């Protein structure tokens, strides 16, 4: 392999949570990742380890991923105690190995939350998020001819804020990094993206109530405003969205 400019190779000690299934006991296992190019992404580094494991006839490390472009929300793990690793506003697939140094030890654990059941190794079942969306994360529109694009006016500021909220890729880093395993940033973003737009207004009350109720029923923790979620979020979604959720929920309940 020819080396690109500025490219280096590093060796790492990687400790990964291995667990065969939801009910069996898991443990941290140590692997040596050798000759890892600093241009690789974190997931490619795992690919390298997995290739070696496969050659040795061992079970590769299971981890979720899809786009590897930071847009689908499938990837994610705790890297040295931080959701999606040390870089701000970066998904695990977009985290590059140049942020690590030679001979670093890297501890990788799955998202931990009662509402996210562990499937295998680093893979967790995030269908709890889908259930919250099903409870109200949509707008109802009649089918028919397509409406005139300018029929409903949206102030530019509202559009921007709604877009910021809609940047949520549902990866679950907010839950994973929250000391209380709360899903408020996710629900806050999903409620906000509609609450800010005229199209979302008709069902705003029903939506806020139903989504919060579903979130509570799924046994996510309670937000105590620790702000770890917004710091860990790869899309840097602000907790002003949580405040908006609080507002929408209380308004819908009391008025």
């Amino acid at each position, binding site marked *: 392999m020819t080396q690109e400019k500025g490219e280096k190779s590093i060796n790492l000690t990687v400790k990964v949570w291995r667990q065969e299934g939801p009910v069996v006991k898991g443990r941290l296992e140590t692997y040596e990742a050798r000759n890892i190019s600093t241009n690789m992404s974190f997931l490619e580094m795992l690919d390298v380890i997995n290739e070696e494991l496969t050659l040795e006839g061992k079970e590769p490390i299971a981890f979720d991923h899809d786009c590897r472009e930071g847009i689908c929300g499938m990837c994610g793990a705790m890297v040295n105690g931080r959701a999606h690793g040390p870089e701000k506003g970066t998904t695990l697939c977009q985290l590059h190995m140049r942020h690590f140094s030679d001979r670093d030890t890297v501890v990788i654990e799955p998202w*931990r939350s009662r509402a996210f059941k562990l499937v295998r190794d680093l893979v967790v079942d995030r269908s709890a998020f889908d259930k919250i969306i099903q409870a109200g994360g949509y707008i109802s529109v009649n089918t028919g001819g397509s409406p005139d694009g300018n029929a409903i006016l949206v102030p530019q500021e509202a559009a921007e804020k709604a877009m910021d909220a809609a940047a949520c890729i549902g990866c679950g880093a907010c839950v994973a990094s929250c000391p209380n395993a709360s899903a408020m940033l996710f629900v806050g973003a999903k409620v906000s993206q509609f609450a800010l737009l005229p199209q979302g207004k008709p069902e705003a009350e029903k939506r806020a109530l139903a989504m919060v109720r579903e979130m509570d029923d799924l046994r996510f923790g309670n937000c105590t405003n620790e702000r770890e979620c917004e710091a860990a979020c790869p899309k840097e979604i602000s907790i002003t969205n949580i405040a908006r959720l609080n507002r929408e929920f209380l308004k819908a309940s009391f008025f």
Partner: protein
Amino acid sequence: MNWFISTLWSSIGKKLMMAITGLCFCLFLLGHLAGNLTVYGGKDLFNAYAENLHALGPLITLIEILLLFLAIVHVLTGCFLFYGNFRARPKRYIKKKSVGGRTIGSATMPYTGVFMLGFIILHLLNFTFIDKADQTSFQIISNTFSSPFYVMFYMIAMVVIGFHVSHGLWSAFQSIGANHPKYMPFIHIVSIVFSLLIGAGFGVLPVYITLIS
């Protein structure tokens, strides 16, 4: 379930209860501190203040009952939140680092809360539920603060309250949904200033009292 109960019982409802009761306690702290500052005017002013306060009679009883009610709501809701949050992550991380959101105040809320509950009970035993027949209010406080251990404990308690309030105050605004880029930075500053004011304002009192007794 009745809509009112189910609203309060939801996760956001519980936070609302914490926020409103907490804000009431902040107001109480402010009033309490203002009253205590009469100590700087000398023994007589302080005793006069205490007497005037007790002369309010039923109004004081009413406020006491209200404070007790607020305390019960705040403590019980806090316990439910703590238990729920503890259960929300049955398997803990082996390695977990803060990414910069938490503060000492926010990370220690349940523990500073428990400490304060203990302190407040002791505080009431020392200053409220005490035989006031043959001693003035000033004598009571100067007697209690004559023990250096108690002074130490009291000052530590004030630092703890400062931390609790530093997170609690801005957090209450966030919980009731009052977060806006225009005034949230201001609320953050107010929280810090308020917690310093409470911590230092009360914390310096015992030193001054021991000096003048």
